[in-house]
């Protein structure tokens, strides 16, 4: 168990001003079996219209819009999280997790992934977790963490063909492999101690619970991770999504820090 403090700052700058800006932010972590969130402060600029609700995956969302011209959009969030309260999240009965066993556009396997999956053979009694951890181990050994070679549109198949990528790619590949085994699994976006940016990992269904695995770091998630949102893939968990009117070039800066309270 840990007491963590976190801050998340994101700023979009537009070289020519935009208007009629609509956005959805999924940046706020929520209290779950594994983590307790307190003192959450969120500031959004511009803050003309802001509403809050959950999406169909249970993630907290801010829906907003800014009508007038603006050349900057920013979000600042701080809060505390008690993590590692449990080692798993309740997931309900298997039939309710069915949508998480189906491949999505990001995870649908092509030749590379199918070939990669062929090197594994499991005994019928191997649990979902055993299978997922075997995949994770092999993936960690063969895939390299390299920034800048993939982007937010890169699919699991494309990333595997490259042999390198970032946390999003590790997560999508692991999801794809698990789903080939018909294991329900979710994509997770969150924050990690020592990471300067948001992070992504995976949860695997095991006996009515979600167990979190971080394939980028080859570990079972304990108390250094703060979960923000879950979904079928990156798309369901996009932190900031928007549409606006304006012909502009945008630059994004994001800064994350997570540290132990009192340290």
């Amino acid at each position, binding site marked *: 168990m840990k007491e963590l403090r976190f801050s998340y700052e994101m700023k979009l700058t537009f070289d020519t001003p935009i208007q009629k800006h*609509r956005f*959805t932010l999924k940046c706020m972590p929520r209290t779950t079996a594994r983590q307790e969130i307190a003192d959450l402060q969120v500031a959004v600029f511009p803050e003309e*219209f802001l*509403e809050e*609700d959950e*999406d*169909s*995956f249970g993630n907290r*969302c801010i*829906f907003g*819009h800014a009508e007038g011209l603006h050349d900057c959009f920013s979000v600042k969030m701080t809060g505390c999280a008690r993590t590692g309260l449990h080692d798993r999240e309740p997931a309900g*009965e298997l*039939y*309710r997790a*069915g*949508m998480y*066993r*189906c491949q999505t556009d990001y995870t649908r396997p092509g030749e590379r992934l199918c070939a990669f999956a062929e090197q594994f053979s499991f005994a019928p009694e191997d649990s979902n977790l055993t299978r997922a951890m075997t995949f994770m181990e092999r993936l960690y050994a063969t895939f390299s963490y390299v920034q800048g070679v993939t982007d937010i549109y890169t699919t699991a198949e494309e990333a595997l063909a490259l042999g390198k990528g970032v946390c999003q790619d590790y997560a999508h590949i692991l999801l794809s492999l698990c789903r080939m085994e018909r294991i329900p699994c979710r994509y997770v976006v969150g924050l990690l101690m020592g990471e300067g940016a948001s992070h992504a990992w995976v949860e695997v269904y095991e006996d009515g619970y979600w167990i979190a695995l971080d394939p980028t770091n080859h570990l079972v998630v304990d108390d250094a991770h703060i979960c923000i949102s879950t*979904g*079928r893939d990156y798309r*369901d968990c996009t932190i900031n*999504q928007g*549409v606006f009117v304006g012909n502009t070039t945008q630059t994004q800066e994001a800064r994350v820090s997570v540290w132990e309270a009192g340290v």
Partner: protein
Amino acid sequence: MREVDLYRHTDTVNELLARYGVKFGIYKNNEFKEQLFPFDAIPRVIGQEEFSYLEKGLKQRVLALNQFICDIYGAKQIIRDKVVPEEFVYLSSGYLAQCEGVMPSKGVYTHIAGIDLVQGKNREWYILEDNLRVPSGASYPMIARELCRRSSPRTFQDNHVEDNRNYAQLLRAAMDHVNTGGHTVILTPGRYNAAYFEHSYLAEQTGAHLVTGSELTVENDHLYFMDYSGRKEPVGAVYRRISDEYLDPMNFNRESVIGIPHIYDIYRKGNVALLNAPGNGVADDKGIYYFVPKMIRYYLGEEPILQNAPTYLPFYEEDMAYVLEHFDRLVLKDVAEAGGYGVVFGSGMTAQRKAEFLALLKKEPRRFIAQEVIDFLDIDIMEGQDRVPRKADLRAFVLLGEEPMVWKSGLTRFSRDPDSFIVNSSQGGGFKDTWVLSQ
């Protein structure tokens, strides 16, 4: 039925239809073309008793479909009880994970259903397809009837035909039933849409505003219509004639410029009604069609009144064996396609094409359904001065308000080509009025 004076007026009615702009648009080779929808004056006639049987069957079917959709996005009992395999649900193109946990206003997912039926030579009716997403076509028999009355008033004095001009009232009742407070609007993607005539006609007939996405805006968790003076009026129901995909760029296709950002989020909160409800396409998938009789038994505890065309799912091994054995007499449909596309007849294939198709079928069995070719009861059309038989289907419209309502008419489409079974307007078919006799 007495001798019908109307048949002599086919040309007049077609001229009037052209004058009123009764057209549909199609894209071919990236070009937008508007086509007239050829009208044939010989109506399809359905007797009172026969229609009341269809009516019962259609109501039953739509109630079960609606319950299925509520269940899929809610408790998922039918999956738990293994009546419908989960892959048919989650891999159907109409399934939207964004609808999980959503209960639309008054629990209605299928406000307007267009159910396609055919009559076999044995006089039995079979359901061919359930169109639940954005079914179109009601406006054509509505206006055709109006114009027929004008060109041949005598016909309707001599024959006791149920008035079909009440479609607008039925639609209005379905819209008002779910309205969350505010105006009712019909949302069109614009004049380049295939069914634009219908959008404007239905708006006029129901008294709803005809709007495009840019005239609607979400503010303070509610939907507003902006009029020309810039005034904002609250909207409580949107009969949207754009597909789920383009409805809201924040939730579905991010590239959509015809949608309304955040409309889906306020719909989830119950602050506006969307007709038809997003995600309902999960029940009109051709793969799910196979399971509709099972749904009727499962949810309603009743035997289905109307039958499906005999259908096989190659997904099941025994059905696959049947399909392989009887391939030459079956029709195969790609579950992902619509509008008469992706339909192939086993008998019409060359040896090479057949080998390729079978390889694909074995590789992706879930992608196809196979059906017995129904020996359609042909109905006559006028070709010049001659009556000639043609294949035809019937799209019945079922509206779900407080109760299900079946419109006492329907769109009868026919194939102009004597050798074709495909009646879709996008493939050059024509249409007829459908008379339901009142006595």
